[in-house]
């Protein structure tokens, strides 16, 4: 899935590093309203004032001064597939995206570098009042809705990298689903990092009005490049009463990317939010999708898979905050560590005083391939209410020689046997993916097995 990038044509590339002038220029080039520029500049101050987080993965290799914060590719935005330049189509092909793309072409909004270059909304969705566009376009065309919700779930001061994203965000998706509308096909976006040392700071906001349903899927794959690169996205979800949002991510960044992402959802009365999160690539990932169960009857689930290979640290997990009675949550976190990789589960389960009759189940399963790999679990459980039903289970396993021998005795090579065991281990995760993604994940796992020493 990695490839060498052909030489991209760039219209505008800001200088490395970050200051007020760069942020102002970025905002002006996008013709943003003044409130957004003010928001960005305030966020920049917060970013500069906050220290680098020291509690999680090692970020000492990351130098924020050594990154381009905004690049606009020469290709302009496209709404028709036919208009998409061949060069970009070739890129998609090389990325091995095809199946999903072929089938769901009509629903794809893809991001090439910092801009969405291709999007095509199905007509029947727009007829129903669904808005699916890149964030800059939404800010221009639907400023009132954007302004109402933007940064309400994840404020700029939430953490250093949320502040960074707030200052320099570019691209990302905006989805608005009107009350009662159920989108019967996943909305999909693919994106990638193309230019060396380029940061990518997409900003995604999904608003599901009462009784609506939307499934959003993003998959990433990255080409080879030389220096450390930073990806720091912010994703905000708002599930209004009775709405249902499922947000699926498959990231396969190349192994020099720092992937520092903040994702949070607010779930109102009787609504449901699901994060499905698969982390394959990157050098360091720090990502803990969060669900705030704000009103009674809300349900949240976080299903994640992390694969840490050589030189990789996947520090991921999930956070659930029960703020209301009769709310339920479920976390299933699976990780695979191999070839010296490290995976950590870092989770928070919080029940505030007064949130009675809460049910929650957390399950962490780690699979380790060899003696040089590592897995850790850092669960935080903070329960301020007595009448709750909380379960936490954790397991660590290795592929046993007995399992390998058994499968090999049925004609499977050692590699296929390992692959099959791993596929079984991640089955609970894959089951939740749209079919074509499940196929891609199985292929990705097979590739990981080929590369593995084990």
């Amino acid at each position, binding site marked *: 899935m990695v490839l060498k990038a052909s030489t991209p044509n760039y219209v505008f590339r800001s200088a490395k590093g970050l200051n007020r002038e760069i942020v102002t220029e970025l905002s002006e080039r996008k013709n943003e309203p003044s409130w957004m520029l003010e928001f960005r500049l305030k966020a920049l101050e917060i970013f500069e004032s906050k220290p680098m987080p020291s509690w999680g993965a090692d970020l000492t290799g990351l130098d924020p001064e050594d990154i381009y914060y905004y690049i606009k590719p020469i290709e302009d935005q496209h709404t028709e597939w036919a208009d998409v330049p061949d060069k970009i189509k070739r890129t998609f092909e090389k990325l091995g995206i095809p199946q999903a793309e072929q089938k769901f072409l009509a629903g794809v909004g893809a991001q090439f570098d910092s801009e969405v270059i291709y999007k095509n909304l199905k007509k029947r969705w727009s007829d129903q009042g669904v808005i699916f566009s890149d964030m800059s376009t939404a800010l221009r065309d639907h400023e009132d809705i954007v302004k109402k919700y933007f940064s309400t779930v994840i404020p700029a001061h939430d953490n250093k990298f949320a502040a960074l994203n707030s200052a320099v965000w570019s691209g990302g998706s905006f989805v608005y689903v009107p009350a009662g509308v159920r989108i019967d096909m996943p909305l999909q976006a693919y994106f990638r990092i193309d230019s060396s040392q380029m940061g990518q700071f997409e900003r995604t906001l999904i608003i599901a009005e009462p009784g609506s349903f939307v499934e959003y899927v993003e998959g990433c794959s990255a080409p080879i490049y030389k220096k450390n690169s930073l990806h720091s996205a912010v994703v905000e979800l708002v599930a209004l009463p009775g709405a249902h949002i499922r947000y699926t991510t498959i990231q396969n960044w190349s192994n020099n990317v720092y992937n520092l992402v903040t994702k949070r959802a607010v779930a109102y009365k009787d609504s449901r939010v699901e994060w499905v999160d698969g982390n394959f690539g990157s050098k360091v990932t720090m990502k803990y999708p969060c669900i705030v169960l704000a009103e009674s009857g809300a349900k949240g689930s976080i299903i994640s898979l992390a694969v840490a290979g050589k030189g990789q640290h996947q520090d991921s997990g999930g956070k659930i905050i029960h703020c209301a009675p009769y709310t339920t949550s479920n976390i299933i976190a699976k990780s695979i560590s191999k070839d010296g990789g490290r995976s950590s589960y870092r989770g928070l389960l919080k029940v505030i005083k007064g949130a009675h009759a809460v049910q929650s189940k957390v399950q962490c399963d780690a699979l380790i391939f060899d003696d040089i790999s590592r897995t850790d679990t850092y669960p935080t459980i903070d329960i301020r209410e007595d009448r709750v039903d909380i379960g936490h289970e954790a397991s660590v396993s290795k592929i046993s*020689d007995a*399992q390998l021998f*058994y*499968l090999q*005795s*049925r004609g*499977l090579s050692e590699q*296929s046997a390992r692959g*099959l065991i791993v*596929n079984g281990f991640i089955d609970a995760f894959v089951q939740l993916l749209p079919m074509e993604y499940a196929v891609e994940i199985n292929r990705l796992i097979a590739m990981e097995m080929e590369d593995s020493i084990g």
Partner: protein
Amino acid sequence: MVLLIQFSCCYTKNMKKNALLRINKLFVSVIDKPVLYDISLSISPGAIHAIMGPNGSGKSSLAYALMGHPSYAITSGLVLLNGIDIAGMSVHERAKNGLFLSFQHPCEIPGVSVASFLKEAYMAVMGIHIAVADFQKLLIARCEQLAIDPVFIARGLNEGFSGGEKKRLELLQLLILQPKVAILDEIDSGLDIDSLKVVAAGIELARKENPSMSIVIITHYQRILNYIVPQRVHVLCDGRVVESGDAQVALNLELKGYDGFKSINT
């Protein structure tokens, strides 16, 4: 069909030539500790041999060594499967060459469905591709033959199966993979009489479909040999074959036990 054969020099020579599985002067060690000594067996196409012996006598070691378990090193001797030397082969190559081992304690592989596992195994052993729907049909027909509820094939491989269910699943795999030589390691242990009959009927069915398939039954008890009558019975004690004979050997063991053999060896 195979006749009961008296050992004689010329006959042995002739039989070796036609044997489907020929083991000659086999020595096996586990981490430098010898577990099998000088084992020689010759099994003709379609023949049934029983290997009996007390706990720790080396029965399962023999099965593992033949299948190629990495911990069971063949230190000397010869194993020919259909005339091909398999001693240097990897486990899956032995399977592809027609060797099958029914495990005494089949492993659980969580999350891997019986159907998806068996489809991969089928394609690997047969060397052909089969569509999911076609394989599903094949599998369900086989389940019916073995009185296996088809819901099992969607479950994780051996995951939460009872002892009897695991044994029936081993037999299902045998029927699907159609080996040349099947080693059945204590396929009768832990079975009630009804399950034993189902298993015996399954073995009989496999033999009917594939009359040239040779079977090595490893067992403690004579019971299953009432249903699957062996041409030859070999008694293992402390890693050595201490007696070989016809089905009467098993009947005698049932009466006298293994004590007599133990004293011979120690």
